[in-house]
């Protein structure tokens, strides 16, 4: 078969994979890994093992697991080591150091103070050391020193910057695809928010049968005795044709105003003073019938 021929669809089975070029196979494998990561994340985020920021957030957890897998971290280690900021999974600086050191590369801090952090890094197998330093002046020149975390813990921030820089210098291949660490993103002027575990929105608890039955009882009253005559079959209410007929008869009988109509209905029904008819729609079907009969009799005494 020449390259531009359309491949015949193979029967289901591994053989068909062989027709796919290597690069495409990689994509297929990645897609399968992504699916596996998502399925795993769905299970993990409901457990107490998942860090708080990933609780009930399987999409973000899957992104962290995939990003971690690319640098050789296990799913659980990935969840502990990555934060997701604006949908991008970013490792903390300490994670970068762990990745680099796990591959045999060396990172040494020679000096650490709130003003200066200096150290070295050496690639696995190399004899040459690569030096690196971060000072508070450098941070100030970049407009970082006034940021909250830099004011609170300048030495920690200097170490974080030193770590990510030296890691890139000696082992760029090991951390390819990780453009920035969490600390660097948070130093950015358009950093969206301070990284902190976001409390997941409380998932609504499933309604229980007991809750439904319990909700049926008024809060301030004891449960009523079950009454077979009460429940889903209370008295039938006024129907729309009854409403229409009622108002026609009231108009014909000279009770045109709404207040006068309601007063007349109250009178016909013999309602006590404290319980007047407030709307024709409040009448039961039986009450409406009684009113219609009475009004018809008023209009035509012979009927």
């Amino acid at each position, binding site marked *: 078969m020449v390259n531009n021929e359309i491949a015949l669809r193979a029967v289901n089975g591994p053989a068909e994979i062989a027709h796919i070029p290597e690069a*495409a196979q990689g994509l297929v494998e990645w897609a399968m890994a992504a699916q596996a990561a998502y399925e795993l994340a769905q299970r993990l985020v409901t457990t107490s093992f998942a860090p708080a920021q990933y609780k009930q957030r399987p999409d973000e957890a899957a992104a962290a697991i995939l990003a971690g897998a690319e640098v050789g971290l296990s799913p659980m280690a990935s969840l502990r080591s990555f934060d997701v900021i604006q949908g991008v999974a970013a490792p903390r600086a300490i994670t970068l150091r762990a990745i680099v050191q796990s591959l045999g590369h060396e990172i040494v801090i020679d000096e650490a103070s709130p003003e200066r952090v200096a150290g070295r890094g050496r690639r696995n197998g190399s004899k040459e050391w690569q030096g690196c330093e971060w000072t508070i002046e450098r941070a100030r020149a970049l407009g970082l020193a006034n940021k909250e975390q830099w004011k609170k813990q300048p030495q920690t921030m200097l170490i974080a910057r030193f770590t990510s820089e030296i890691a890139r210098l000696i082992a760029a291949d090991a951390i390819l695809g990780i453009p920035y660490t969490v600390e660097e993103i948070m130093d950015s002027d358009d950093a969206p928010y301070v990284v902190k575990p976001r409390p997941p929105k409380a998932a609504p608890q499933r309604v229980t*049968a007991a809750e439904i039955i319990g909700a049926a009882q008024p809060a301030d009253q004891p449960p009523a005795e079950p009454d077979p005559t009460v429940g*889903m079959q209370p008295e*039938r209410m006024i129907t*729309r044709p009854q409403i229409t007929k009622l108002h026609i008869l009231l108009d014909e009988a000279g009770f045109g105003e709404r207040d006068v109509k309601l007063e007349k209905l109250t009178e016909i029904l013999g309602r006590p003073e404290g319980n007047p008819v407030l709307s024709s*729609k409040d009448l*039961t079907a039986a009450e409406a019938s009684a009113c219609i009969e009475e009004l018809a009799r008023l209009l035509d005494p012979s009927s």
Partner: protein
Amino acid sequence: MTAGAMPATATGTTPVDPTPGPAGAGTELTGTYYGMPDEMYHGRTDSLSYSGAKLLLPPGCPALFKWDRDNVRPSKTAWDIGHAFHTLVLGVGAEITIIEADSWRTKAAQTERQEAYDAGAVPVLRKDYGQLTGMAASVRAHPLACTLFDPANGTPEVSLFMRDDASGVNLRGRVDFLPHSRDGRMILPDLKSSISADPESFAKAAANYSYNLQSVFYQDLVTGLGLADEVVFVFVVVAKDPPYLVSVIQLDEEAERIGRALKQQAIEIYAECTATDTWPSYDPDPAGGPQVSLVQMPRWYTRTHSQDYSW
């Protein structure tokens, strides 16, 4: 022959005047309205309802929403059956008129149907009425469903109106049944008839009809109006065929999260369309005039046939 509502409503406490003005007109409504007639509720075209929001979003579009808003939809048998079912279970709604015919094919049946419409009633064939009474009886026999719609515990068919402060858009909803206020979270039930009461099948229907959007729409109205601090929305799903099985179903948090995003999207579309009085159809770039839409086949289709062509 006319059949009344078998079970009827709770006695209507009316905390707000139920006669706020003519349909589609008058002052802006905010609050809880008991006993508002159907035509008045649906005539409030100055507000966005759940069904309107659904029409604004794909596979609907603003042009469809506008048409639906500005035109009276012809009745469909399925809607009539749905309305009649609500009447039988909730005890409120238009009168049911039973038509003694096997189908709507005959002239006589069609005439009777029109007469029922003219009288403001819902026409239902005798055979359908038998099915509906069976379904309603099944609801009453189900311990949870019966309790959820028990007139002693709340009021059926309550209309809710409020303004969304962030967008200035007026929202409205008509809940099937508003429970009385009490301690604890409110359980707001919604009645659905369905081919099957199987919860998994319902999940698919929920996706097709955006029931998650309805769930958050009504929850937000109830909490926004201060009727409850916390609301849980549950669907009482009744199968249309014997033995008329009933399921009480709650959508999960993920569904509601998506529903809330859909709601926000619909509100934004509505606000923009209203402000500019433009109601675009399916054109990819409404400002650019009619264009050809380039579409991808559904992912499942592409995946299924991914081996049919070479890379």
